[in-house]
């Protein structure tokens, strides 16, 4: 079966970072995601997670290596075609964003008719379905700026769903959410994955979220893929301690037997190998 996405020895360097001591934001990254898979990219700040998301959605183009979407080199696809296959849910919308929920979700239909001035009835149907899936139908006429963070998150997710992508990439989907909404988003992602078979790639700092929802976890550090595998294999206390540079304990969750990561206070006093680099991810 063709992987939904496959990265082969991908390297990337920001043009302005030539003099940076770590010239490459991403180096020698290879992985593949199968249809229907849920995977999470974890790693410290500046480990290259966001760069990876940008490369997958062709906001950036690799310096070396290739990224293939369903077997086709992403560099050869027109931009709209990329957007029909990969949808990205950013952390939030820009401040002052003036559109209503419905208008926002309909924007997800642009890749399906980039030359059209108006949306078609199919576009509207897709938007209605997407809003229903994320339970924002009741908010359709509300301006996005007036919604709470959780509601906004669901609207952006609905917009991504309206794209009808093969690969759904979520950048810190729970960052702005309280505990209850975090639970809701996780449940929603699971349901979507189960119902439509969409491949989901999460980027998260929340290791326990990763452990809970992922089939596979990709651990990154300093632009490289350190380990890839099921949660059990990646969420190893020694490995995490070396990557994050703090004291970590891992035990099992009672019901699901998935790993559960705890930070141990006080963290180790010595300076850590994964010290905070200046660039944000």
């Amino acid at each position: 079966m063709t992987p939904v996405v496959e990265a082969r020895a991908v390297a990337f360097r920001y043009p302005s970072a030539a003099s940076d001591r770590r010239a490459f934001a991403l180096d020698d990254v290879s992985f593949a995601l199968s249809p229907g898979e849920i995977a999470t990219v974890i790693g410290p700040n500046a480990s290259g997670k966001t760069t990876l998301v940008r490369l997958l959605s062709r906001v950036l183009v690799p310096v070396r290596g290739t990224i293939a979407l369903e077997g086709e080199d992403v560099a050869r696809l027109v931009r709209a075609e990329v957007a029909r296959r990969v949808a990205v849910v950013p952390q939030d919308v820009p401040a002052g964003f003036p559109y209503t929920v419905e208008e926002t979700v309909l924007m997800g239909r642009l890749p399906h008719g980039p030359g059209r001035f108006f949306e078609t009835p199919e576009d509207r149907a897709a938007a209605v379905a997407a809003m229903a899936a994320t339970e924002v139908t009741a908010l359709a006429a509300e301006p996005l700026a007036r919604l709470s963070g959780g509601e906004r998150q669901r609207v952006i997710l609905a917009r991504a769903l309206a794209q009808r992508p093969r690969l759904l990439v979520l950048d810190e989907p729970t960052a702005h959410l309280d505990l209850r909404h975090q639970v809701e988003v996780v449940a929603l992602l699971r349901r979507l994955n189960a119902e439509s078979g969409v491949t989901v790639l999460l980027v998260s700092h929340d290791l326990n979220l990763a452990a809970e929802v992922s089939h596979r976890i990709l651990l990154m550090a300093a632009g490289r893929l350190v380990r890839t595998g099921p949660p059990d294999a990646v969420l190893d206390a020694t490995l995490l301690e070396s990557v994050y540079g703090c004291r970590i304990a891992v035990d099992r969750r009672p019901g699901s037997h998935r790993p559960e990561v705890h930070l141990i206070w006080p963290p180790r006093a010595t300076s850590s190998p994964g010290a905070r680099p200046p660039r944000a991810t």
Partner: protein
Amino acid sequence: MTPRRLTLVLAGLGIALVAAAVAALFVGSAGVTPAQVLAVLTGRSPAEGVERVVVLELRLPRIAAAVLAGAALAVAGAGFQALTRNPLADPSVLGVSSGAAFGAVLGQLVGLGSTVMDSLGLASFAFVGALAAGVVVYLVASTAGGLPVHSLLLAGVIVGIFFSAAITVLISLIDVNRLGGVIFWLLGNLSPLPAAPLAVFASVAVAGGWLIVGRARQLNVLALGEEAALQLGVDATGLARRVFVGAALLTGTVVAFVGPIGFVGLIVPHALRMVLGPDNRMILPAAGLAGGVFLLLADTLARNVMAPSELSVGVITAFCGAPFFIYLMRSRTALVTRL
């Protein structure tokens, strides 16, 4: 947004435009009676009559110039605001206005009036100035990767400042006798354009407008940010290029043919957004019509408030524009939701 809603709005604005144009045909300092205007319009007036000249050769072309200029400025303003995601952006921010003004002042200085320019007057100089400024802004702003909006804004402001300074230099060189004309021109004034320049004006305006309006849906998506727009399949750089060229063409022609008229590109799109919402597919075409109506009304005022003396239409638009701008600033937070 549905086609039906757009049609309704545009039809309404179209009616308003026709009404304003008809009203403008009937008023003026010549004291032509409405009956005489009607006679001219229905072709029942004597061929050599003054009424004919006033209505067909003065008022009609001036109305056309006002509508074209207003439409062009409003579309350029709306487009540029969408492109920069800055609701206070104005076509003059592009630096193109200053470039055109520089060209016009230079034209005065080198003693225009050579027969080559008889038909277009200052316009050709202004147009070249506008294009030059546009190209410079473009070159300054474009990087290897594309045309980042913040660079565009910054380059526009810088180039604008440079050309303003250059204008000051030229003005201090200019003959006192010509100074009045230059300052008059800098205020922005409409005049009845002959058919050929009017045709040039109209074609450039239509071309520029098409470049912008045709990408209204993409401009909507751009409100999400450049990265999000890319992720939705919008070529943000190409879009920026296209809208910039369109806005520069529109601004440049307007400045060339009628002078730098401020505030139309700011007021009209804002007023429309407050009423019609933010969708550029609605705002851009509506701005075309509403801008035409606005500038036509402003010019009709300018022609008649102090008749037979004429105010500069730029003075009227600024007079309405400045208080509106202050209102915008004061109520910015309230407006954010509907911007």
